[in-house]
């Protein structure tokens, strides 16, 4: 397992470099005046442009710029915004909020999604089953910004306060996780239905175990493997996927910061956020792969 993890880690390096380079190039590397519109209606003064160009090393050849950026990044140096704010500080403020939001969303997915999936999986073909199936389809199909807008205005919710207390994050979290929640429900249901007729479930019955134990231990334990791994992946992707939800509820997390930075063309912040999110994504992917091996002893890593 150790060797497998190491190999996966090594494989992740070129992906990380490639993705950050792609974004870095899009944001910094393309020809164009990075200071256009930065000084209001007027052209920026010569001295300002020169100062900024020196400060961000914009005269260096592109590969050098990227290399400098990457080495700084790996040392935890995110650099400064055009206004001189430490990007690291901005991230430190925003990330905890987004992580909290993602945790709320995943908790809701696990709690509601698995419960609904088990209920429908055990009563396949019933009224409840069909009702839940149709609702999950609607949830999967409805874009988050529609659900978010409708929820916010029909419930008359105010913006989430800057400290983002847990209570205020419940509804945004539910909305953020709504699509995945529906998917988890379906995944749980399908797995239960598939495994219900499995030979080992039959064996558990033949052993004279109580129905609650047959379902709760033998059936559920097997059916949860793909569900749990999916929840893990989702935690990773939700941290970066909250742009819309954070925008609608004015939550000051990574998504909001990113959208702001794009609008105000704070290139350094954009690249830093994307770099971190890609890193999170790659690490979560690796962890989930390893988790899969823990959950299913049949998986072996060569």
């Amino acid at each position, binding site marked *: 397992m150790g060797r497998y993890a190491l190999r996966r880690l090594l494989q992740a390096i070129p992906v990380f470099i490639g993705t950050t380079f792609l974004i870095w190039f899009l944001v910094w590397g393309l020809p164009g005046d990075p200071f256009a519109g930065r000084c209001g209606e007027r052209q920026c003064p010569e001295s300002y442009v020169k100062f900024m160009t020196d400060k961000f090393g914009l005269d260096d050849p592109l590969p050098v710029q990227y290399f400098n950026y990457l080495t700084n990044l790996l040392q935890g140096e995110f650099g400064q915004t055009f206004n001189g704010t430490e990007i690291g500080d901005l991230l430190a403020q925003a990330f905890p909020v987004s992580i909290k939001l993602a945790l709320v969303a995943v908790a809701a997915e696990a709690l509601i999604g698995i419960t609904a999936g088990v209920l429908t999986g055990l009563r396949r073909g019933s009224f409840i089953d069909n009702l839940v199936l149709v609702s999950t389809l609607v949830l999967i199909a409805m874009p988050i910004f529609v659900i978010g807008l409708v929820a916010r205005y029909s419930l008359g919710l105010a913006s989430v306060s800057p400290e983002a207390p847990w209570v205020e994050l419940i509804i945004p979290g539910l909305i953020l996780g709504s699509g995945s929640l529906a998917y988890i429900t379906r995944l749980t249901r399908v797995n239960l239905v598939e495994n219900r007729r499995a030979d*080992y479930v*039959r*064996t558990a019955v*033949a*052993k*004279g*175990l109580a129905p609650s134990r047959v379902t709760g231990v*033998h059936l559920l334990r097997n059916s949860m493997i793909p569900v749990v791994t999916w929840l893990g992946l989702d935690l990773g992707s939700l941290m970066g996927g909250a742009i819309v939800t954070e925008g609608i509820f004015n939550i000051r997390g990574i998504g909001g910061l990113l959208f702001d930075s794009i609008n105000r063309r704070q290139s350094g912040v954009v690249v830093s956020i994307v770099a971190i999110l890609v890193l999170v994504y790659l690490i979560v992917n690796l962890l989930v792969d390893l988790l899969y091996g823990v959950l299913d*002893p049949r998986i072996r890593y060569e």
Partner: protein
Amino acid sequence: MSDIKVKTAPVLGVDGRSAGHLLEIENLHVEFRTRDGVAKVINGVSYHVDAGETLAVLGESGSGKSVTAQTIMGILDTPPGFVTNGSIRFRGKDLLTMGKDERRLVRGEGIAMVFQDALSALNPVFTVGFQIAELFRKRRGMSRADGYKRATELLDLVKIPAAKTRLKDYPHQFSGGMRQRVMIAMALALDPEVLIADEPTTALDVTVQAQIMDLLAEIRRDRNMGMILITHDLGVVADVADRIAVMYAGRIVEQADVHALYGKPCHPYTLALLDSLPRLDLKGQELNTIKGLPPNLLRIPSGCAFHPRCRMARDICSTQRPALLELGGVRSSACHFAEELYGRE
């Protein structure tokens, strides 16, 4: 192997119905309600087994032998399977009418089952130790430690080397034969009175098959259990069974003492089965096979279900269904020409 044939237990109630048998199935009917129609899978099967004896149930796939076993265990998939008639009495009590909880307690403790494919029958995500100890913990209220201790003893009993360390292994880490031993150990955990072995050796290599059969026979003898051995393999049966019931299209077509059956089969189907065994003394000759396919259970042939494939079939066979005729002793056959066959030399 020949010592196994020595009967250590008396065969009780040889004449059938009168005495209470340990496990007695009577006139069992099961049908599968599928999209394509109702398949009559079991059509009036009766057999019994007593402590210390082995009954072999023989038949092709689709003959209903495994479904009978599943019905006894109460693990028939419903739907599509439904019991429409009959009774299954264990120690005189009908399993089909007793309460759910009462019946559950019979499983494992009264009647236990060894499944055909241990790889899929054992839960892949739990260690074998967990799966065996679970029985002691949940059914006997033992502590975890005691449960594992008993599980070790059981693995020792079924001759798995290094039992203590292997407890921590998962089913896929065992070889086929060892896995089947685990399955047997699990079935024996609660000391059942009847053990149903459903094709216990089909998935195994020939050499391993013999070992597993020996193990089963030995355990059956030591514990004086009743055993129902379900198989399609005539070779397996001869050494282990006391009595044989041959099934075809959901009915028993012949039932007899093992020697009697091999010596003088009294049903054309049994005859054909025996004929189709490869024999050393007939080397070089063409192997006899039974022509045709097993019957479609949605449309069982009229009269005797075997008549389309039967070499002895006459007009009467397609119109009248022969009853199971007693031929003396434990012997019976469902063929219009049973007496003819019985009387032959």
